[in-house]
Structure formats: C-alpha cells, structure tokens
C-alpha cells in the first residue's frame, strides 16, 4: 500500500484538526493555519489524483480495519481526486481573495470562529467527496450545513441572520429527507457501504421485489439532496444566503457547497442505485425537467433582480439547473458534463462574487447594478474579472462556460428523447444569461451619473484572487481535454 493512499484520510483529518486547533488560537493564526490546511490538502488531493491516474484504478481505504458491513471506508479514484483538487483550489483562492473583507465583516474576537467554519467546511467537503459510507456522508452533510450556516451568520447583520435561519430550515429539511432515505435503504438492504449496498440493490432489482420502497428511497434521497443544493423550486433560500454573506463565504457557498451535495448525489445514483431503478422510476426525468425549469426560472428571476449579489445568486439557481439537467440525461456524457460544470461553475461563480465585491468597493458600497455605473473605470481589474465571468457564463469560446455548454449539448445526442429540449433550453438559457450579466457589464462601462464618494481601492489579495480565477477559467476553457478525460475515467471507475 502506497503512502499516498493515506492522503484522502489525512486531508480530512488535517482540515478537521486545524479547525479544532483554531478554536484556541488567535484569529490571525487561525487564518494562517486555515490557509495552510487548505494548501496542504489541495496538494494532497493533487497527489491522490496523480496516483490514481497512474495506477488507473480506484482503491478503498478501510478505516480501523473493520470490514463491511461495520467498517467505515474511504474510496479514492481519479474523479474523487480531481473534485477534491478543484474544491481545494477554488477554496484557497476564495479565502485568499476575501481576507481583508473577512477581517472587516467579522467581529474582531470571532475571527478564529470564521476560520473554524472554513476548516470544517473543507473537511466536510473532502469527506463528502471521498466517503464510501452513506451514514458518514450524512454526518458530514450535517457538518457541512452547520459550517455553511456559520459562514453566513458570521456577518452580523439582519439579512445574514435571516438568510442563515432560512438556510438552516431548508437544509434541515433536506438532511431529514436524506436521513430517512438512508434509513429506509438500510432497512431494505442492510448495508451502508456503497459497494455492498450496490450489490444488494442489484439483487433486489433482479428479484423484482421492493419496487416501491426502492423508488421511495431514490425519490427521498434525491429530493433531500436537491433541496440542499438549491434545485428549483427549492431555491428560495439561495439568493439571500449567497448575496449577503461575506465575500469569501459567498464564493465558497455558491461555488462549492451545493456542489458537494450534487457530487454526493451522483455517487449515490451511480454507485448505489441500479440502472433499472433509475430508468423505470423516472427519477432522472424528474431531475431533468426540474433542472430545465431551474435554468429558465433562475435566469428569469435574475433578470428581475436589481441587486447584483442576488442576481448572481439567482444565476446560481440556473447553473444548478444545468447540472441537474446533465445528470437527468442519464448518460455517461451527461454526467461528465454535469461534473465539468461543477468545476466550471465553481470557478466562474466565485470569480463573479469576488469581482463584484471589488465593484461594490469602487461604488461606495452600493450593490444595485445601476449604481455600479462607471465602476469599470474606477476599478478596471474587478470589472475585467466580472466581464470574463459573465462571458464565461454566456458560453464564450475559450472560457470554461463554453466547454460545459458544449459537453451538455454533445451529450444530449446520446439521449434522443431529450435532445431537442436540451439544445433549445441551452440556447434560451444562454440568451437569458446574456440579458442580466451583460446588462450589468454595459452598466459598468457607462459614465457615472453622479460622483461616487468613498471609493476605496481594494486590496492586493482581492486582485490576485480575481486574476487567479480568470486564469482558472481560461485553463478550464482551453485545456479542458485532459480534465474531461479524467472525469470520464473516474466515472468508469465508479463501477
């Protein structure tokens, strides 16, 4: 057994322990520790990716040498490594970019609390990525929820608090459904580890018994995770949550958190459920159509929105719709596209949130998009960042959004029945994206109506983050081939 194979476990533990340690040290130190932890775990994820890429197969990692069904397992393959790496990168840049704002927004004594939440978030995301055990997944889902809530409410203003409580309520609902789904699954199969559970499910499917309970399980788990990831029409907690948190939190929440749940869902769908159940139960169809509805409605809400943050947040609703649409296609290509879009959207949305902050700064803290007029001249870099993000969102070639659009569209050809709806939904949604994002971009470059007071130059780390995200976008847009191949390989390893 190679030493590298320990890395998934190490990275989860490192993140968690840095959280625990942070509770007793000062905010500054906690910050440094947190950054270091993210950096280290990211490197580890890269190592895991490289390792599994080289060996060409995934491995399971037994915790404490308890075999199934009692033990607790971690599983790492190319896909897990890749997702963990992406999460780490986005997280690192987001945290780095928001450093100053975090210090400003958070009460001085509670800075370490914030970084505890970041660490917990990291560890729970990694755990969701790596875990091979459904109940562990549930526990980390809850940890993730708590960390997310903490990130939101750390900013002590009314909107954050109310957003946090709504987030908690919705998340709890989702968790509850997820939990009951797990319990039912356990009841039916007697397994909690994914691989034995899959065998059991396959047996059940072959014996043609428990049809309805299996459907219920599938539905409950899907709905639970859909609520948690904000699929339309369970989205209404999203705008406030994303829009009113501190920049780092916004970027992480919108870019990563919901993606962790989606990745978990993909894992459950492909590693636990049998294809027969997926196909007969129309679950995928439901996800697909809700995804498309989300693409449309999210964008329409965004168009009606004037507040920039909420607009971007509603755009997330639309983008999550894309991902569910990809999953709902029920093909390898569709899932590949969905996973690639997880990356692409993570990079882009974080970029948008971070650069939007730069624009608020340059406009005296106003967030209304009409008040951002002329911000493009006052803060050129942030405006360029925002423009690049927006262009990526509308699928400009050479940026990441184009590739995910392309993947969605080409994968639609594998599923003839959903081909036309997918293509047209993509086109319409792109157009709608253009409406609200580019409206804002134009606004940025128009001369201001009145002189804006209190313009503050943003800090170097915000700028660095913007540049990094732009580069990340370009990398995803121009060198997507290996990434997509890795996703494909990882998906093959699922079985």
């Amino acid at each position, binding site marked *: 057994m190679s030493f590298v194979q320990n890395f998934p476990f190490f990275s989860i533990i490192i993140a968690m322990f840095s959280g625990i340690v942070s509770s007793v040290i000062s905010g500054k130190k906690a910050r440094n520790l947190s950054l270091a932890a993210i950096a280290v775990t990211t490197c580890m994820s890269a190592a895991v990716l490289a390792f599994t890429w080289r060996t060409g197969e995934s491995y399971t990692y037994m915790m404490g040498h308890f075999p199934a069904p009692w033990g607790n397992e971690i599983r790492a393959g190319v896909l897990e490594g890749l997702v963990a790496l992406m999460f780490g990168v986005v997280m690192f840049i987001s945290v780095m970019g928001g450093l100053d704002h975090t210090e400003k927004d958070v009460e001085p004594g509670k800075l370490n609390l914030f970084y505890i939440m970041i660490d917990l978030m990291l560890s729970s995301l990694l755990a969701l990525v790596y875990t091979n055990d459904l109940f562990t997944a549930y526990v980390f889902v809850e940890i993730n929820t708590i960390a997310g809530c*903490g990130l939101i409410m750390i900013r002590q203003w009314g909107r954050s608090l109310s957003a946090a409580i709504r987030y*908690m*309520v919705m998340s709890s609902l989702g968790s509850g459904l997820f939990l009951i789904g797990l319990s039912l699954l356990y009841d039916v199969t007697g397994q909690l580890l994914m691989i034995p559970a899959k065998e059991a499910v396959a047996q059940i499917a072959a014996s043609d018994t428990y049809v309805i309970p299996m459907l219920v399980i599938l539905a409950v788990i899907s709905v639970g995770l859909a609520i948690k990831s904000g699929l339309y029409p369970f989205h209404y907690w999203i705008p406030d949550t994303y829009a009113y948190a501190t920049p780092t939190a916004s970027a992480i929440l919108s870019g990563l958190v919901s993606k962790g749940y989606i990745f978990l869902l993909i894992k459950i769908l492909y590693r636990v459920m049998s294809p027969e159940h997926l196909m007969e139960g129309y679950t995928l169809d439901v996800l697909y159509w809700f995804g498309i509805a989300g693409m449309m409605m999210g964008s329409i809400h965004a168009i009606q929105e004037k507040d920039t943050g909420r607009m971007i947040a509603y755009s997330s609703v639309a983008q999550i719709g894309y991902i569910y649409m990809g999953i709902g296609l029920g093909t390898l290509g569709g899932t590949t596209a969905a996973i690639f879009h997880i990356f692409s959207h993570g990079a882009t949305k974080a970029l948008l949130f971070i650069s939007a902050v730069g624009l608020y700064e340059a406009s005296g803290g106003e967030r209304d998009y009409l008040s951002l007029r002329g911000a493009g001249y006052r803060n050129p870099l942030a405006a360029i960042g925002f423009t690049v993000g927006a262009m990526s969102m509308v699928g400009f070639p050479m940026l990441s959004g184009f590739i995910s659009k392309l993947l969605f569209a080409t994968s639609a050809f594998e599923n003839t029945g959903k081909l036309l709806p997918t293509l047209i939904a993509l086109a319409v949604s792109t157009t709608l994206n253009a409406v609200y994002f580019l409206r804002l971009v134009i606004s940025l470059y128009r001369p201001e109506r009145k002189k804006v007071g209190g313009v503050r130059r943003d800090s170097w780390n915000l700028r660095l983050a913007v540049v990094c995200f732009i580069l990340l976008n370009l990398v995803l847009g121009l060198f997507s081939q290996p990434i997509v191949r890795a996703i494909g390989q990882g998906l093959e390893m699922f079985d």
Partner: protein
Amino acid sequence: MFTHLMLNIEETVSMILFGIGFTTLLLHPNLIKKIIGMNIMDTAVYLFLAAKGYIAGRMVPIMSDGIQDASAYINPVPSGLVLTGIVVSVSTTALMLSLTIRLYERYGSLNLDRILILVKEEGKT
C-alpha cells in the same frame, strides 16, 4: 392494510412523526416550533432505526456477562447510527437556537415571516 400498519407499528408511528416534524419545520412560522419540529423529525428517524435494529428477545449490544456470541445481541449498527444522529441533531439544534436568540434580540419576534418583513424594511432604510 390496517393490520399491516398495526403489525409494523414502530415504522408507522415513525413515519407519522416524521411527517409531523417535517411539516412543522417547513410551515410553522414560529422559530422555536420549527426547531421542535426538526427534533421530532430526527427523533422519528431514530425510532425507525432503533425499531429496525431490534431483534426480539436479544440484549443490548453491550458486552455483558461475558457472552461472546453475536447472536445474543441485537444489531449494533443502528444503535450506533442513532447515537451519532443524536449528536448531530443536538449540535444542529444548538446552532438554530443560537440563531433564534440572535434574531429575537434584534427583531423582538420569533415569527419568521415577521422577521423577514422587518429585515426587508431594515434593508430599505
């Protein structure tokens, strides 16, 4: 049908409880009652799990009297899950309560709808 439900009374009750809890969490405007609803929901799941793990006539899965044979004990996994679940649920409840306190201090109300209205008004000024 009814006999089926009566035979599986634990499952039936847990599902009813889950429904009650879920509905309360989702629909009740009062934050405290929402939290209570959440707890009912979680408890329902624990009940369900415990019922699933119970095997009539066996012992608690704690080694006692030196009996090594696994068949003397009930399935330990659900019990473990319930314990973990309770921990999680407690922490979530704590977090929600703390949030509720914050909101109450700020807005003087426990009614979420009212709070949201107040938040909006605050945003305008």
